């Protein structure tokens, strides 16, 4: 451990959520790097500012919203100086100076001064009984007023104003909301949703005056009323100004740091002075300022990374979604939904049921979503929006939510995929929560909060977490798909793969070292993934690491529940011969293979083979010309065919021949997940090509290529890709498609999932329309096949490869 005197000094100005979250991340990554001092103007420890509304409404107590108690600061050696305001930053001597003149030196400075509420510059703004809504002190003032007084006016019909009004109403005050325009929350809602919200708040007892401009606050010493531009006056004992916030950049400006609306920072959260970082509401990043918690936490992560001297993370801006924290009102809004000429809308409005949904689409991408009354699909829409997913293929069903797309679900949480976000504040996916529930034996929402931070910020997702708790306990069925590859790394699949390619990383140890893997040799999750990315990136150069292959791919057979293996030789296009069948029968006899079964992919499975027998079994099969069918791998499996024009009276083309040709060209290739093909000789589609990863349906005039079908965990009809006139073009497009899939999909991701993410149109452009790109993809595929098309069975049966796999180390007979 470093001595205190040699540690660098980090000073944090601001004891709020963004600053402290940064410190938390920093302590996780580099606990001994800095001596940390935090200055807070408020006399409190760090509390959850988003939960002020529930405190005001009497649903929570102050103690319940404390995020970091004093003991946390002590435990982590963080020096907290509350109630001390910093008056100046002296960049020349690298010191911060308090109002009392006390100087504290820094090596690195973090500015997290947040924002100030905007106070309207109108007469009476300084009267007693006029408050803003920003911190604990404001809440205290409001609670005090609610005890003694009756009438409240809230100026501002945005998120904060409505939450304040709701809280005051719950505390027994007659509350009127004054809003400048005629739509509540006009930045998050359109007119229809705003009107529905207003009606439902009116039904609860809130009053509204809008559109109305407040021109004066009346009273001598204490507020007595409010006057509007139209001359009307209403009586009031309390006025809450909730008209907006403004980044608090006074200190930064005085220190000569470049500020516009906010303190301008780079993608690494540094200001124009590289020693000075900034996060939170005071910051302006790529011209955006943020007032919601999720972006602040994203920034905190990146900033902590950089402070910890791990420079790889970048903050690239956030998409934000909004939920109103008024119990009983379901409202969700995300993205941009202003009407424009190049945008289209899908609207569902059921006034009787109080449900309204509006989706805004541009170029087959979801641009914005407003949901009122039924917000269950909010997280799903938000995910489509953030990922820029191509929604062309699901457009007609888009409005009906995720459960209507493919798999049916029982409740909202159960229907979400593992990478679906439950907690938008902390970016916690369902997979992480389910994993934590299972792994850490969690039973209560509080437990989940403690372990995953899900629902620990705004709490709007509490009911989803409860659904997960109810349904997920005891569920081991699936390894959850989380954003980082696994616990060994913060890198996502996409980041890891991009880094491997960009930095020319050509071995597993090299890749793990470069990306600073937290475990010396990874785990059973990340190693196979990285191994695949290396195989795909460096054909012929990378030496496949057998110890990073799952057993099936390592020994080229499928492990069974009793530890024996199954063997499936390739039958090209599902065609076999008496000789091959005889060889299979002889092998089954010779090695006492208990079960011989026909598979769903038109071939024969020999089940129950002892591991030690595998090379001998393969040798006999090889002798009859049979090679590995890769039934065990994330690789090309089968090409199912019908008999086509050779025999069938309806056949339009030689579907069997095309199937054989495709299989001969594609076999041996490693892919992100298994790949199954089929070729049907006519539109009757006896080979069921339209539920395969890739399927061809022959017609009289050519070949229809379909892809992204599924008929397993999910059932999904394939998408039509294109139609070709010739077999050669058909093969070329399919090879290009497989190569694009190999280069882009995440390890374990089937083609249909990849297509959802990457977008049908983009894929079509790359492999059909852009001939140059198609040819390039085809060439890369053909190149990689030079190294891939080696029968792994022959290597092991006749060439002695991996002999140690198939023989015991020793035998010992106990006496």
């Amino acid at each position, binding site marked *: 451990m470093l001595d205190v005197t040699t540690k660098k000094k980090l000073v944090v100005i601001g004891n709020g959520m963004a600053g402290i979250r940064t410190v938390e991340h920093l302590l996780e990554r580099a606990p001994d790097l800095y001596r940390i001092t935090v200055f807070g103007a408020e006399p409190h420890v760090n509390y959850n500012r988003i939960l002020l509304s529930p405190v005001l409404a009497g649903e929570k107590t102050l103690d319940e919203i404390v995020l970091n108690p004093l003991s946390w600061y002590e435990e982590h050696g963080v020096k907290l100086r509350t109630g001390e305001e910093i008056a100046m930053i002296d960049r020349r001597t690298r010191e911060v100076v308090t109002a009392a003149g006390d100087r504290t030196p820094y090596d690195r400075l973090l500015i997290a001064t947040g924002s100030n509420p905007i106070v309207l510059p109108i007469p009476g703004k300084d009267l007693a009984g006029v408050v803003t809504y920003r911190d604990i002190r404001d809440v205290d003032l409001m609670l005090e007023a609610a005890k003694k007084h009756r009438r409240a006016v809230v100026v501002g019909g945005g998120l904060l104003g409505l939450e304040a009004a709701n809280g005051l109403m719950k505390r027994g005050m007659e509350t009127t909301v004054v809003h400048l325009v005629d739509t509540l929350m006009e930045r998050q809602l359109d007119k229809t949703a705003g009107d529905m919200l207003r009606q439902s708040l009116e039904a609860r007892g809130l009053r509204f005056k809008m559109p109305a401009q407040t021109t004066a606050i009346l009273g001598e010493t204490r507020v007595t009323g409010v006057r509007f531009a139209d001359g009307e006056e209403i009586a009031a004992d309390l006025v809450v100004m909730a008209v907006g916030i403004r980044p608090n950049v006074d200190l930064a400006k005085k220190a000569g740091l470049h500020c516009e609306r906010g303190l301008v920072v780079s993608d690494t959260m540094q200001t124009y002075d590289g020693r000075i970082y900034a996060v939170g509401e005071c910051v302006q990043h790529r011209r955006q300022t943020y007032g919601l918690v999720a972006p602040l936490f994203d920034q905190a992560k990146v900033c902590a990374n950089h402070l910890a001297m791990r420079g790889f993370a970048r903050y690239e801006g956030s998409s934000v979604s909004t939920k109103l924290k008024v119990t009983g009102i379901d409202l969700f809004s995300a993205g941009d939904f202003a009407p424009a000429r190049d945008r289209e809308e899908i609207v569902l409005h059921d006034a009787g049921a109080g449900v309204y949904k509006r989706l805004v689409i541009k170029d087959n991408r979801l641009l914005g979503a407003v949901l009122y009354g039924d917000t269950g699909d909010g997280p799903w829409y938000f995910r489509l929006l953030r990922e820029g997913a191509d929604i062309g293929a699901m457009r007609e069903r888009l409005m009906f939510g995720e459960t209507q797309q493919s798999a049916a679900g029982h409740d909202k949480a159960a229907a979400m995929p593992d990478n679906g976000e439950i907690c938008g504040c902390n970016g916690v996916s369902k997979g992480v929560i389910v994993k934590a529930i299972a792994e850490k034996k969690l039973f209560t929402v509080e437990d989940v909060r403690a372990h995953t931070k899900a629902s620990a910020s705004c709490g709007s997702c509490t009911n989803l977490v409860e659904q997960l708790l109810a349904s997920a306990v005891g569920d*081991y069925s699936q390894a959850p798909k989380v954003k980082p590859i696994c616990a060994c790394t913060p890198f996502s699949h996409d980041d890891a793969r991009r880094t491997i390619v960009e930095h020319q990383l050509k071995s597993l140890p090299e890749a793990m070292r470069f990306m600073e893997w937290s*475990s*010396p040799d990874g785990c059973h999750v990340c190693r196979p993934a990285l191994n695949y990315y290396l195989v795909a990136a460096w054909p012929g150069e990378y030496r496949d690491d057998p*110890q990073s292959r799952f057993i099936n791919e390592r020994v080229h057979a499928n492990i069974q529940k009793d530890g024996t293996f199954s063997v499936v030789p390739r039958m090209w296009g599902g065609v076999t011969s008496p000789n091959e069948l005889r060889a299979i029968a002889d092998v089954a006899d010779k090695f006492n293979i208990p079960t011989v079964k026909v598979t769903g992919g038109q071939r024969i499975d020999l089940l129950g083979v002892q591991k030690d027998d595998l090379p001998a079994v393969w040798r006999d099969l090889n002798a009859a010309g049979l090679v590995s069918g890769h039934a065990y791998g994330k690789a090309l499996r089968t090409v199912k065919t019908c008999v086509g024009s050779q025999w069938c009276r309806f056949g339009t083309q030689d579907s069997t021949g095309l199937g054989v040709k495709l299989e001969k060209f594609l076999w041996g290739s490693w892919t992100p997940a298994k790949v199954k093909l089929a070729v049907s000789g006519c539109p009757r589609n006896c080979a069921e090509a339209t539920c395969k990863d890739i399927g061809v349906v022959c017609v009289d005039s050519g070949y229809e290529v379909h892809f992204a079908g599924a008929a397993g965990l999910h059932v999904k009809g394939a998408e039509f890709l294109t139609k070709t006139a010739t077999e050669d073009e058909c093969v070329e497009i399919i090879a290009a498609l497989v190569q694009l899939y190999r280069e882009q999909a995440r390890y374990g991701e089937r083609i249909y999932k990849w297509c959802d993410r990457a977008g049908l149109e983009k894929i079509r452009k790359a492999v059909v329309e852009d001939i140059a790109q198609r040819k390039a993809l085809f060439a890369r595929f053909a190149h990689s096949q030079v190294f891939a098309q080696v029968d792994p069975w022959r290597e092991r049966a006749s060439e002695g490869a991996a002999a*140690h796999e198939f023989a015991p180390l020793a035998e010992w*007979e106990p006496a």
Partner: protein
Amino acid sequence: MSAFLDIGGLEDIPRLGARVVNVGAGKIAVFRTADDQYFALDDRCPHRGGPLSQGIVHGRRVTCPLHNFVIALDSGEAVAPDQGCVARHSIKIEDGRLRLAVNQTASA
């Protein structure tokens, strides 16, 4: 505990790999980590009897190939929250050879 038997050379097991020693009707899995530590456990996962010798070795752990139970190689214990324990056997290195003492109370 039986006497130590010679079961092979240090390089007979690949790094991050495992091999089995047949002991009568049962099997013992012998693992080698990245830093050349050797461990011996019954080749039966406490979960559903999966062959641990066929799993992926990482750190001081092995992941069962059947249902991804993770077992600590040094203790034979399943890593929390999984539960269960598999019998250990003693391994020592002498004259550059691997020697195994079978813990007969545990092994079939």
